[in-house]
């Protein structure tokens, strides 16, 4: 039995939340394993301290509306992180596709090309080595146009 599982069971046992058959099994385990018995005693002291403290200090009770639980259907609550990641991937893919489209409109075999206000220039810069560095986009304020540099 893992330590985390044991501790969780000991809390439930101390609070009387175990089903009778499970409680019997846990008791038998505690008799057979002295280290587990020590854990149980420590947990009993902790629960006792918590109970005494909560009863002794009424100001510990939260007095205002606590954060509301998310008011969503549970399945969406579970899916929300995955949906967010999927949405982010779609957004990045769409942006990359748009950039590629725009660059394809403006690049040619050599020299600058004009297309829709953007100028494409080929550069032989060794910094352009990966997919995401294949294009560089800059704004030329003199011409009032975007310049797209592509990997040679």
């Amino acid at each position, binding site marked *: 039995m893992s330590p985390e599982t044991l501790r969780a069971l000991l809390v439930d046992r101390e609070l009387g939340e175990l089903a009778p058959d499970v409680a019997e099994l846990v008791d038998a385990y505690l008799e057979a394993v002295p280290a587990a018995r020590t854990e149980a005693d420590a947990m009993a002291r902790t629960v006792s*301290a918590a109970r005494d403290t909560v009863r*002794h200090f009424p100001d510990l009770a939260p007095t205002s509306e606590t954060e509301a639980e998310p008011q969503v259907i549970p399945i969406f609550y579970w899916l929300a992180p995955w949906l967010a990641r999927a949405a982010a991937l779609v957004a990045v893919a769409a942006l990359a596709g748009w950039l590629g489209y725009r660059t394809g409109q403006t690049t040619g075999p050599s020299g600058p090309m004009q297309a829709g206000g953007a100028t494409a220039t080929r550069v032989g810069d060794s910094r352009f080595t990966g997919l995401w560095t294949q294009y560089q986009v800059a704004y030329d304020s003199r011409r009032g146009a975007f310049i797209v540099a592509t990997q040679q």
Partner: protein
Amino acid sequence: MSGGMFETAQPADDVEQLYRETREALTAYFLRRHRSTHAAEDLLHETFLQLMRRVDCCRAASSPRGYLFGIARHVSADAWRRAKPPGEDDTSLASVAAPQPDPRLAVARETIAGLPPLQREVLDLRFQHDLSYAEIAEALGIPVGTVRSRLHNALELLRERLEQE
């Protein structure tokens, strides 16, 4: 008196029984949060008025007592939102802390005070009001597993702090 009609709802026997069983616990619940016996009584009545409006939901709940504490929780929160700071009442609840707290309690108090409100709420409902996991889940509108994990995490942290002392 013509035209005036007063509805007198006779509380059902089960609601009356629930009232008898939970009156003290709910009064204590409101006293802890509002520090005033007058406020506690008013809020207790408000709680049962709300219960009477949705008595069918209470009967259908897995734990009527937990459902009732859920209503009490919202009634308490609404009262806080409406009102003034707690009790210059002559019947305000005085601090029950003993002048020389046990050092163990002092550490535990500091630890529990630093917990998130939702964990403190679970601790309060369990150790002060003796609600079961299922009743706490019903009161807070969360799964029983969440109640267990919040309680376990809080106690685990408390145990670590106590062992450090």
